[in-house]
């Protein structure tokens, strides 16, 4: 057993411990905190699996932003938790445990019985990378070979926004999402919120840009930008935009919209829908990604902010 394996086992044990904590601890708030720690640490596993693109995504969206959404809800719901319903009976829990364990066992068997040799598309991806002029294979898959999935997934994000907004009360419709954050404009939080975001913007754009050839991309960069935006909002330095705002709407559809337009362009002038002419492939993809960066950052930020609660006037 090599030293690397020992490390892997240690990592798996720490993460598994956090997972068990998250499920088993009685207090919801503690479980949420455990989950944030979990989400951030899972990124380590992804690095270990040599999937850095995913590690970036998991650290940013899975752990960071996702954790914060949960945390906000846990903080809001905390007072009510005492009066929550009874836990299911022992029989139910035992049978659920047994069945879950069998599913897990079946999965373990299925995943650990590898076909030999394991099939892979990696050589295909590499040999076709020339068509886009990008060196990051994951970006190539996302933006060229499986561009349809990526575009539809942007629409999913948009629908999530529609869904969240549709939960507003009728009076608050068109207003600003989330509560108004109050903070001392001279406080430490405001201090951080003035210093960090510009640097965060540079980092976010860098992550997008480097995504062409190295791990990175629009999602990860967008998540960084979103977190910086929310930091400024939480410090009370700016307010969330009212959802009626025309500009906001345009930004929110910019990513999928441009994607669709470029795709249709491929249908009309090129070889196929979502096909990029070889000469312009890289600039086209980068401009789509730039639009998506804006869209994703705004979308993620608004998803965290929640439904419109206040009228736009305040």
């Amino acid at each position, binding site marked *: 057993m090599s*030293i*690397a394996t*020992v*490390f892997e086992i*240690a*990592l798996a*044990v*720490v993460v598994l*411990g*956090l997972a068990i*904590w998250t499920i088993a*601890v009685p*207090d919801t*708030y*503690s479980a949420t*905190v*455990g989950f*944030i*720690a979990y989400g*951030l*640490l899972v*990124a*380590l596993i992804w*690095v*270990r699996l*040599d999937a*850095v693109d995913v*590690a*970036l995504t998991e*650290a*940013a969206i899975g*752990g*960071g*932003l996702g*954790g*914060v959404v949960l*945390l*906000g809800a*846990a*903080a809001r719901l*905390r*007072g009510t938790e005492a009066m929550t319903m009874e836990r299911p009976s022992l029989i139910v829990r035992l049978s659920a445990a047994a069945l879950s364990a069998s599913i897990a066992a079946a999965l373990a068997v299925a995943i650990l019985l590898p076909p030999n040799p394991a099939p892979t598309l990696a050589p295909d991806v590499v040999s076709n990378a020339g068509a886009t002029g990008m060196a990051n294979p994951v970006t190539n898959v996302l933006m060229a070979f499986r561009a349809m999935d990526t575009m539809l997934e942007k629409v999913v994000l948009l629908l999530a926004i529609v869904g969240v907004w549709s939960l507003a009360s009728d009076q608050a419709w068109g207003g600003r999402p989330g509560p108004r*954050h109050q903070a001392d404009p001279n406080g430490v*939080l405001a201090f*951080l919120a003035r210093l*960090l975001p510009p640097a*965060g913007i540079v*980092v976010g754009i860098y*992550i997008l840009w*480097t995504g062409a050839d*190295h*791990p*990175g991309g629009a999602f*990860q960069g967008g*998540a*960084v930008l979103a*977190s*910086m935006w929310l*930091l400024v909002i*939480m410090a009370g330095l700016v307010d969330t935009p009212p959802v009626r705002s025309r500009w906001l709407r345009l930004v929110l559809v910019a990513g999928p919209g441009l994607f669709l337009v470029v795709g249709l362009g491929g249908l009309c002038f090129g070889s196929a829908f979502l096909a990029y002419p070889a000469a312009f492939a890289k600039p086209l993809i980068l401009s789509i990604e730039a639009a998506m960066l804006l869209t994703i950052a705004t979308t993620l930020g608004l998803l965290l902010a929640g439904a419109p609660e206040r009228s736009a006037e305040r």
Partner: protein
Amino acid sequence: MTEFLTTAVGLILAMLGLGLVSILRGPADADRMMAAQLIGTAGIAVLLLLGTVTGVPAAVDVALILALLATFASIAFVKKGLSRLETDGAGPGEDR
């Protein structure tokens, strides 16, 4: 060198795990708020070492994102914690 660095990664990871145990145990919310900060330091150290060990230079970018996002999570902790203290008003002492 690789063995040494891997051992170091393992040790820091173990420290991280132990630290998380102590932090998550509480008793106060302020303790739990430190979780993201602990990951912000120890987790990044692990990542940087791991990047060097496995020769994945982009691990540094992951560390960068982790630094920013862990900060963000910590701020959210404090912010929500504070807002809860304000709304609770009376007895913030009892946390369990």
